């Protein structure tokens, strides 16, 4: 590739970067740099397999949900043991002022300060799974198995009557749960995406 082509394809900043780093990125005897070597390239290649333990992001369409499943009944038992100390019996809250109830919620027409809850606010059920898995219980994040997270998600959805008492949640069924507030959102700056 000619120097002309290289400059034509790169931004001014990248070109300056290439010039600045020329001596560092390549030995003096190297051939002229192509655009792909103009950047420092100090990142170490890594495989997705080696990232797997970190890759806990879940998308609303279900991408990223792990194997496993759980029912509301299983979730009730786990909740009583690991969650109710803060969130209260049957997720009704009230243990301390900081830990919210996970069931119910007033209508959003009650005012701009209305308490946002799973039932009155969340757009997608995957958010519940994702947040429990990455952040709960507060003192011991990532201590729950995927099975336990599915069961707790099922329990909370069931308490809010968003699924039936016997519905099993897994990677296929969870994304299909429609949250009541899903279509009530406005995006103020769509041109920024």
């Amino acid at each position, binding site marked *: 590739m000619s120097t002309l082509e290289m400059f034509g394809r790169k931004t001014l900043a990248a070109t300056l970067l290439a010039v600045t780093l020329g001596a560092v990125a390549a030995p003096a005897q190297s051939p002229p740099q192509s655009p792909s070597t103009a*950047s420092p*390239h100090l*990142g170490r290649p*890594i495989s997705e397999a080696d990232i797997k333990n970190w890759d806990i992001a879940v998308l609303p369409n279900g991408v990223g949900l792990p194997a496993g499943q759980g029912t509301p009944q299983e979730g009730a038992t786990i909740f009583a043991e690991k969650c109710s100390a803060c969130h209260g019996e049957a997720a009704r809250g009230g243990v301390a002022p900081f830990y919210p109830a996970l069931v119910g919620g007033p209508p959003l027409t009650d005012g701009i300060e209305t308490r*946002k809850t799973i039932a009155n*606010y969340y757009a997608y059920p995957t958010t519940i799974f994702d947040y429990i898995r*990455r952040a709960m219980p507060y003192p011991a994040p990532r201590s729950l198995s995927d099975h336990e997270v599915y069961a707790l998600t099922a329990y909370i959805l069931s308490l809010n009557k968003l699924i039936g008492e016997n519905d099993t949640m897994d990677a296929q069924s969870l994304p299909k749960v429609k949250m009541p507030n899903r279509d009530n959102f406005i995006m*103020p700056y769509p041109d920024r995406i």
Partner: protein
Amino acid sequence: MGKSSSRGRTPSLEAVAGNGLVNRRALLGRGIALAGALGVSGATGAAAEPLEDAPWSHAFGEVTPPLQTPSRFEKNVVRALSNPNGEFRTAHARTPHQLLNGTITPNPLHFSINHGGIPDIDPAQHKLVIHGMVKQPLEFTLETLSRYPLATRPHFVECAGNSAGMFSSEPIQAPAGLLHGLVSNAEWTGVPLSVLLDEATIDPNAKWLVAEGGDAQFLDRSIPVKKAYDDAIVAIYQNGERLMPGNGYPMRLLVAGYQGNMNVKFLRRLKAVDQPAYTYFESKNYSQILPGGKTWRFHFLMEVKSFITSPSFGQHLKEPGFYAISGVAYSGAGRIAKVMVSADGGKSWGEAALQGAVHDKAFTRFVMPWRWDGQPAVLQSRAWDEAGNVQPLRAEFVAARGQTKAPVKSPLAFPNQHYNSLTSWGVDRKGEVAHVYA
């Protein structure tokens, strides 16, 4: 702009607005002459004491330390804490703006919010991975990122919940640092994110990055790739030194002008995806309820705003005469273009002087000369940015965004998000400054 009510007491200097506001050009190069004309110097005429050396001048001083800390007389210049005992909940530390000046927030006073405590990260062990919809997933360390050519820019970071107490139906009596302390401004240095994404060769169909921290919540937010290529950096220095632990040590995402929570701290992972993840924080906390029950999501932008830091709540004007009204203005949409100040609750306005260089998405300090005549006054500032956005008046703002049904008691509460209307400080005849709505 009205030039009303100079009240016949301002001598030769031009009044630009009511209640004693003086043309900002009076600040340029006149020094003592200005003070004299404004009726300050020699006003008391009290007999002066003969000068004596102070005792600290007659003894060898303190040891010069390796890491210096402020004078013991500045002990009150600290952040206000919401969770001082480290309970299992979010902790906030608010910048005491009423005690600071200039535009750069000192690192120990930069605001900090931590939802799962501050992780004690060993920088030699910390890794950042870029993966997902990329041709080659990559792993970076602090050492490798430090070898890149770094960009350095001053930027404010503001929590979307900053100034939330201003949604209260009645003004909360609290200092500027409690009302507005969840914004700070620092010089950030780091690697342009576009360079790293190019090295991983991001898929053109990837529109979002899920940015994740290494804290005890693995806090994550969905960031538009568009913003990543606009001006995002992976910051590794804050005001010239490594990041403060509470500000993301050893590396954080810096998406200038966007919600503070999107500037993910302790950054460990960027996953390129084709749709937003609807993470907890973008699904709940940093999404707003509007009057009538509709809701906003992916608001991103911290809009144009300003507030006066001096005089402000809790301060006391000891005597009538000259004061510099001073504060900060900033906008997530660009540079500050203009700040207007009123001393009569918005009846008349004068243009403030902007100090120093005006930077993109950064604090700009404004100053307005003022001669207080000892009568009640209401001080306000209002900012414009280069994109033409103007800070809304409170009546306009409340009409669009609402306010609480009942007064909010605590300045630490978050009844809603994204308040960017005016702040009004009421000065009474005794010189006491209160928070008022006007």
